[in-house]
């Protein structure tokens, strides 16, 4: 008797906890709606109003179609493990946000649905999307996601500092950029002309370095998308240009080697850098938090090199998983959120951070003609993507993920490697990424 009571209490403890676990498990119920719920994973944006607008649109869709729609707004870094877990367990959402790289990688594994016909329907009804963005997610003639918004990078510059230094306008070429940076740098005030930095956690430098290399006529891949043509005169000229900024001209901030993605923003917002290259996030942040600095900020297209003007494009898309439980509703949802009237107000909310994918909108919408937004919008027409001069390939994605361009510059600037040795190391590593 005295033995059994404590034993029973313990059994009760375990029983109650087990019950709690199962009870918690069963709260996952589908309320309302005839068919299976629609699950949507969307990238959480910087502007909260844009996020709530998207969720509201999803709930409208739910009401109109008598469905349950579950929208999950996720930070970009958080999505990678979730994608993996979902795909491997085949417990995938119906609709998901994808960067164009992920579309390329996932489609090559066959997990994305072919939406070529859906895209055609949308374009026939609403107007054409930017061709470059569509090409970036089209492989073997089939499109595997619908471009939903772009992110451009442009040159930010301090109009007041330019005036003080007697410079008439923003630089149009990299050569002018260098001259302007030298005039703007004032070490005694802690101001540096060129807000460029490197670091493995810094994807900004991966994009910018590519844009610079392309503008000097260099590239990683040849037009076939397979051969590595990195070791060229154009590439070397671009590399010399960048290392010159750091080592000879000393127009970069002292801690610039070791920046992460926040590095150049911090440099600009704190007044440390007179010029930076970034997406529209700084404009949005200044609008809310520092209108004074915003008033002194000019935005213009990236400077051009001897071979032209290039921007490394960021293209964000919505795609449908092949294993989606509700593919029909998924396709209708994509059509619903690409409706031009709703889309226009949604995209304008975060200008200039998210760029519209409809070509006509870009030209007719007055929001995108404003000075601080126009530079970003214009950059979209000069987008080139990873894999240039060829199409996007998973190998190009690997080179970016391994931050090999960043390693090249850090080897030269931090470790004192010679330019040619660093180029050779890059080519070897890139070749390995292609072969494996």
């Amino acid at each position, binding site marked *: 008797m005295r033995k059994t009571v*404590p*034993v029973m209490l313990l059994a009760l403890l375990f029983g109650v906890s087990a019950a709690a676990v199962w009870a918690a*498990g069963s709260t996952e119920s589908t309320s309302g709606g005839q068919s299976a719920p629609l699950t949507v994973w969307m990238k*959480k944006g910087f502007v909260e109003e844009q996020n709530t607008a998207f969720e509201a649109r999803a709930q409208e869709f739910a009401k109109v179609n008598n469905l349950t729609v579950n929208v999950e707004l996720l930070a970009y870094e958080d999505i990678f493990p979730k994608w993996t*877990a979902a795909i*491997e*367990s085949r417990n995938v959402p119906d609709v998901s946000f994808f960067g164009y790289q992920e579309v390329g990688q996932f489609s090559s594994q066959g997990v994305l649905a072919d939406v070529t016909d859906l895209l055609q329907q949308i374009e026939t009804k609403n107007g054409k999307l930017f061709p470059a963005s569509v090409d970036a997610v089209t492989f073997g003639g089939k499109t595997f996601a619908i471009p939903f918004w772009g992110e451009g990078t442009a040159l930010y510059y301090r109009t007041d500092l330019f005036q003080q230094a007697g410079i008439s306008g923003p630089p149009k070429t990299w050569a002018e950029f260098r001259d302007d940076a030298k005039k703007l740098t004032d070490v005694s005030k802690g101001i540096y002309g060129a807000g460029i930095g490197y670091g493995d956690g810094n994807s900004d430098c991966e994009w910018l370095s590519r844009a610079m290399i392309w503008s000097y006529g260099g590239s990683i891949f040849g037009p076939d998308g397979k051969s590595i043509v990195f070791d060229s005169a154009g590439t070397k000229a671009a590399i010399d240009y960048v290392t010159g900024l750091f080592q000879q001209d000393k127009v970069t901030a002292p801690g610039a080697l070791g920046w992460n993605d926040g590095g150049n923003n911090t440099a600009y917002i*704190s007044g440390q850098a007179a010029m930076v290259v970034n997406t529209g996030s700084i404009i949005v942040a200044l609008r809310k*938090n520092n209108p004074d600095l915003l008033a002194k900020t000019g935005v213009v297209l990236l400077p051009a090199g001897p071979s032209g003007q290039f921007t490394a494009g960021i293209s964000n898309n919505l795609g449908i998983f092949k294993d989606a439980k509700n593919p029909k509703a998924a396709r209708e949802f994509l059509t619903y959120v690409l409706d031009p009237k709703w889309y226009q107000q949604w995209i304008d909310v975060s200008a200039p951070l998210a760029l519209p994918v409809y070509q006509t909108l870009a030209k007719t919408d007055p929001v995108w003609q404003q000075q601080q937004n126009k530079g970003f919008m214009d950059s979209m027409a000069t987008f080139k993507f990873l894999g240039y001069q060829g199409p996007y390939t998973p190998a190009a994605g690997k080179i970016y993920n391994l931050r090999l361009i960043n390693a090249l510059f850090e080897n030269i600037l931090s470790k004192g490697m010679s330019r040619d040795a660093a180029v050779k190391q890059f080519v070897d590593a890139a070749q390995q990424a292609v072969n494996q």
Partner: protein
Amino acid sequence: MMRIRKVSIGWYILLLAFVVVTLFPIYWMLVTSLKSFQEVYTVVPTFWPKKLEWGNYLQIFSKYDYGPALLNSIEVSAVVAVLSVTVSLFSAYSVVRLRFPGRKAMPQIFLLSYLIPQTILFIPIYIFLSNIHLTNVIGGLFFIYPTMTIPYATWVFITHFQNFPVELEEAAFVDGATRLQTIIRVIVPPSLPTIVSTLIFSFTICWSEYIYALVVISNKGQRTITLALSNMLVADIIPWGPLMAGAVIAAVPIMAIYMVASKYIVGGLTLGSVKG
């Protein structure tokens, strides 16, 4: 008397050094949590906010759903900690005190849980949870978190019981107590420092866990604090004010638990009950 005071001052100096190094980043979090956006972005750091920006604390609750996240984290961490420690206490006791085949091999199997890093382990665990339909709910975490805490807790108790004098139990048996009564009345009280610190560690292991929570939870209202915080990193501009406010707030339950538990951590083995 003079010798004792000299030793004491040495310890106090060491204490000062520890406190400064430990607390400086935390002081920095506190100070940053009260700064305005622009004041955070100054080249020369300021050591106290020019204006106290309490709005950051409001923002983390209103804009970033920190309230429900705190409750979820506390609930999961507390339940898992208590369950794990209970199970581990009994398991360790069996291994050290009782004779049965395989008693040395079994606890080593426990440690297999730690062999594979969680950054890989989360995939098969998610597949497993998927198959038993425990995904997308916080219940899934109750199911897998003990794998992180039980091995550690069991081994702590094993080493603890090895140093524990058998005589205390034998005295209780002689008095006619059952094993369960013995455990509860004779073993637990003097072991309280170890039990309480193991409870606290198990709690904090769950409290700061990220990747399992990330893949298991999809409902905004069920997020734990680690997810609520990582969900704030949306663009290349970090909301330092609210983020640091989140960090400061996350310290409060820990401090509270610790202060309460402090009573039980003082003291050690029953003094003078066993001779020699």
